[in-house]
């Protein structure tokens, strides 16, 4: 059976050209949560009511308008997103109640609904087209390119964009050695966090002697604030599968597993559908692409343990055991899943593989010397445009936060460069970068040098109202909750670090606390069994490195400059504002406020339990926190 991808692509394009309009609705998790599926249905209803014929892309019917549902388009802050092709008119924050107007104005009359357009922050001009939006134009969307431009559920859409061409080549035309060499030459490194050269990993597995070999796609993305892999699986699942087919040919695997956390129901659904479709087309199963070779992919839902993102724990989980890491060696390439040679690659890495394999690919020319290509980041926190972005390695925080992200917002919503305090990069295994790193080219070595990691791509932006001790505590709580409990230093060490951070935050710390915390942090780093344990102290080490004075302020002055640590808050009554109404005294649950209508009132700090009830009760803003 020979599969002609060109024919499939041509007939798909021909069919799409017959539609007058194609309406692409973002069906990523963020937009769905904001109601994009209601918008999707409303469009069908309204268009039909206006007398135009409408169809759904997957049904492959002829109609005036075709409705497509994409994966995450990345501009999550502005969702639900609606793009109307062929022109590419880009509407944001679309609600079902806007649909009537859009259909009437844009589809029927050819006008623009201006209030739904993106406004350029600098020029204040309305931006009409998706390809003109600065959020996108300032990125290099290569791996994410098809996310948002194709209907993730339609394999033909992916094929029409050149999909599966590289897989077919790898299966029919290339040797395993050529495939590994090509990936090695591209400089592609693992996007899951460790940054290990992918081609090298494949070469180890290719050379390993094993009765059977496995390729595993690690989709157990668990960092707080990270959603790169989810978006890829939701938006372009076929790219991930194509990467796996190529990997399987490179290393000689006959079976693949996609391990995806069950908290990603949409990703699970789409990747399962994609695998079924690929099997139907003859890309998976027996005799793939008519080659006589066998390779199939199974989808495994993880129960949501963060540690299952660690490869040995992930394999234990697939084997049906408790997800706990095992010591390396033996390395998975030699002894992995069920004792056989196994290669584990991250979702983004695999989705990059078809790109780097393409003839004349210039992907490897992007980036820096030690980190080639692009990287996706999940941009969150105190920034105007939160969402999913892709930039070449070597981009700076300034480009990411200011140009793409639209700047740092204060708690009251103002955007000023001086608001920027830090970013947490690399999630709970990462560290923080500060204004001094604003122009640092971001790549593996550069970021590591300043005590953080690129990681899988979580980027949390923080303003000056953020307490760095609280941030360290947040991540410590996360790693303690997610510690598998196997090795002593991670299981107990992260708990004790958490307790020490609580001491600092709650005013119990003394001069021994920071040294004890720091000593323990390095012990966990040195002593933990797996990568997650070894990197668990990084947020503490990194914040101690850049914000030690903030820690010391908490410990010695019992003061939190950001005002986030409630136990350190000092409530006082500003006599200039106080109207002596006595409401605060009557509200205080602990009798900490005394005084009279004549003399005024004062708060006894020894009795104050810092509950904030007085402040909430005061009608004149007279109660201040110092």
């Amino acid at each position, binding site marked *: 059976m020979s599969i002609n991808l060109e024919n499939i692509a041509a007939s798909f394009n021909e069919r799409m050209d017959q539609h007058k309009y194609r309406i692409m609705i973002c069906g990523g998790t963020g937009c769905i949560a904001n109601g994009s599926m209601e918008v999707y249905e409303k469009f069908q209803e309204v268009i039909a009511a206006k007398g135009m014929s409408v169809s759904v892309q997957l049904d492959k019917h002829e109609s005036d308008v075709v409705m497509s549902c994409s994966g995450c388009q990345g501009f999550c802050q502005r969702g639900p997103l609606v793009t109307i092709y062929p022109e590419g008119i880009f509407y944001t924050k679309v609600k079902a109640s806007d649909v009537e107007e859009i259909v009437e104005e844009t589809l029927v009359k050819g006008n623009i609904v201006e209030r739904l357009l993106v406004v350029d922050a600098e020029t204040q001009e309305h931006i009409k087209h998706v390809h003109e939006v600065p959020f996108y134009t300032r990125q290099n969307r290569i791996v994410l390119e098809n996310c948002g431009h194709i209907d993730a559920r339609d394999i033909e859409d992916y094929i029409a964009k050149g999909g599966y061409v590289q897989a077919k080549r790898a299966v029919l035309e290339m040797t395993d050695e050529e495939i590994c060499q090509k990936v090695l030459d591209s400089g592609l490194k693992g996007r899951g966090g460790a940054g290990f050269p992918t081609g090298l990993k494949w070469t180890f597995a290719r050379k390993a002697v094993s009765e059977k070999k496995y390729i595993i796609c690690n989709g157990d993305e668990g960092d707080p604030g990270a959603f790169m892999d989810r978006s890829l699986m939701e938006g372009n699942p076929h790219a991930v599968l194509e990467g796996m087919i190529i990997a399987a040919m490179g290393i000689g695997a006959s079976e693949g597993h996609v391990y995806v956390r069950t908290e990603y129901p949409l990703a699970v659904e789409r990747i399962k559908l994609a695998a079924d479709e690929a099997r139907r087309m003859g890309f998976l199963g027996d005799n793939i692409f008519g080659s006589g070779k066998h390779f199939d992919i199974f989808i495994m839902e993880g129960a949501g343990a963060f540690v299952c993102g660690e490869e040995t724990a992930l394999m234990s989980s697939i084997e049906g055991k408790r997800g706990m890491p*095992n010591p390396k060696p033996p390395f998975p390439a030699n002894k992995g899943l069920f004792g056989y040679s196994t290669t584990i690659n991250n979702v983004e890495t695999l989705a990059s593989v078809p790109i780097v394999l393409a003839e004349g690919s210039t992907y490897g020319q992007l980036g820096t010397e030690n980190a080639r290509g692009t990287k996706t980041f999940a941009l969150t926190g105190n920034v105007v445009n939160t969402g999913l972005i892709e930039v070449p390695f070597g981009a700076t925080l300034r480009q990411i936060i200011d140009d793409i992200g639209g700047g740092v917002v204060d708690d009251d919503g103002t955007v000023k460069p001086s608001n920027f305090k830090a970013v947490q990069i690399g999630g709970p295994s990462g560290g923080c970068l500060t204004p001094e790193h604003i122009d640092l080219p971001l790549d593996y070595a550069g970021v590591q040098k300043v005590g953080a990691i690129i990681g899988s791509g979580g980027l949390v932006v923080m303003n000056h109202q953020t307490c760095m001790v609280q941030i360290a505590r947040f991540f410590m709580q996360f790693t303690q909750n997610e510690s598998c409990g196997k090795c002593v230093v991670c299981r107990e060490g992260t708990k004790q670090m958490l307790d020490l951070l609580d001491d600092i935050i709650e005013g119990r710390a003394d001069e021994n606390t920071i040294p004890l915390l720091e000593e323990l942090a390095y012990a966990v780093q040195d002593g933990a069994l797996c990568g997650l344990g070894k990197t668990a102290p990084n947020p503490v080490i990194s914040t101690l490195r850049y914000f030690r004075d903030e820690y010391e302020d908490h410990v010695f002055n019992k003061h939190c400059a950001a005002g986030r640590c409630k136990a350190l808050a000092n409530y006082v009554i500003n006599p200039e504002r106080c109207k002596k109404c006595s409401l605060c005294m009557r509200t205080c649950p602990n009798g900490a406020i005394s005084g009279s209508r004549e003399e005024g009132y004062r708060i006894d700090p020894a009795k104050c339990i810092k509950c904030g009830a007085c402040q909430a009760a005061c009608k004149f803003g007279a109660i201040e926190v110092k």
Partner: protein
Amino acid sequence: MENNTIIVDHIEVALEGERNLLEVIRKVNIELPTFCYQPELSIYGACRMCIVEVEQNGRKGLMPACSTPPVPGMVITTNTAQIRKLRKITVELMLANHNMECTTCSRGDDCKLRQVANDLGIEKVRYRNIVQPAEIDDSSAAVVRDSSKCIKCGNCVRVCREIQSVGVLDFAYRGSDTVITVGFGHGLGESACIGCGQCLKVCPVGALTPNFQIDPVWAAISDETKVTTAAIAPAVRVAVGEAFGFQPGEVLNGKIATALRMLGFDRVYDTVFAADETILEEGTEFLGRVTGGGVLPQFTSCCPGWVKFVEQFYPEFIPNLSSCKSPQQMLGSTVKDVLVTKEGLKRENIVNVSIMPCTGKKMEAKRPEFAVDGNPDVDYVITSTELIRMIKQAGINFAALEPSEFDMPFGEGTGAGVIFGASGGVMEAALRFAANTLGYEPKCEQLRGEDGIRSADVTFGDITVRAAVVSGLANARQLMEDIKAGKAQYDIVEVMACPGGCVNGGGQPLHEHHLDTVARRTKGLFENDVTLAHSSEENKQLVAMFEEHFGKIGGHKSHELLHTTYVDRSKNI
């Protein structure tokens, strides 16, 4: 690399197939502290105590010695300032989540955690103690679990799964809330636990201990209305001395008999008598099955862990289990029957105490079929460890004791009965009996050895007996699967739950390197064997008792007293 050597703390060591750096390091007489390393279990790598500095190809890093295979040219340093600090912090962290009521911990002085903490000079734990209140699971008659002492080394989980293929223990929850637990939070007593006690042998702390019965035994001794008997199992005589300066394997039944009298037992018997009794019954049963076309293979039924294992996991093989009671239970019912009949004692005034190498025997004695009108055949079972403790409580200077004899009639035993304490012993004793009965030379050493599964064809003239000896229930499971699949055919199979047999029982004194100890205890039993009568039917007291009291071997009375039935427990698991 031209040299097959590595350097450990400036000493060059030749590699001789060691599996990991820890084995190499121990070869140069450096004892790194470890909690989760057990040579017979899979590598776990969790306690982080054996971390060493490894220099290889110009790169230096910290690696756990237990999970790192030696590579020629490695330079190992086991004792740097960084490593010392790391070890100390690691132990401090364990202590901060540990119930530190050491003075009242039943593990006592041989707690590894306490010992290592002491060696490292930890005088103060700088972290807050976060241990959860003790949750003591004493639902099992065999083993008690105290979660507040558990350091989560996972040894018990792995021994139960890997060596015994029972797997009743596993981890639950995460972070510092991680616990080891029985499925669904049930008690061990309600679980598939077979009571072997191998878990407590590998527990470095006091989280797993035998279910001590010392107090009721003292109470029975003090009760003047009771006649209290003690009987020691074969494997006890080669192990109790270890607590008093003797070597493993030294046979000390004479001193033990004296000590038991000094403790106040009215009669001091030898379970070896009942081992011989078992051979006469079980051997006769076997010959009957062979000649009468009965169900084969016949499985031994001495080991209560194995019996429960069959009842739970292989109920279809219950007809294959010998219907003979174990020696402990045979002695219990025989002693009560004889003392009542011959001495006119009241059954309820006789208190039988077994001293066993085994925690499972505690469960066995509580089986309802081993009681008459609610009065158990064996009232209390204590382990070797508990006997040691009683001797210490009484202040007896055990080493200096004059040996004395067991009381008759239940004090005579043959070598065949003595070797019951080691894997293969029951089989060899049965074959000696069969050979004698059939008129052949009773030299039957074909099945001796250390492998977990051993088999041989034993020929007596034109009769060939296909025999197998198994210890460790994971091995037994493999054998059962082979039998089921038709890959193996046997006529008689001996199974002991504990690897190496009763000498390695869960009630024996604990040792850091217990595999070596087991070998020495086994050797002691076989050395004792050759000084005694060779075959069970040469036990004169026993033969006389059959003639006077029971009548025929395998007859009506012996069936009533010495045989039992089994229960399909597959629905309970």
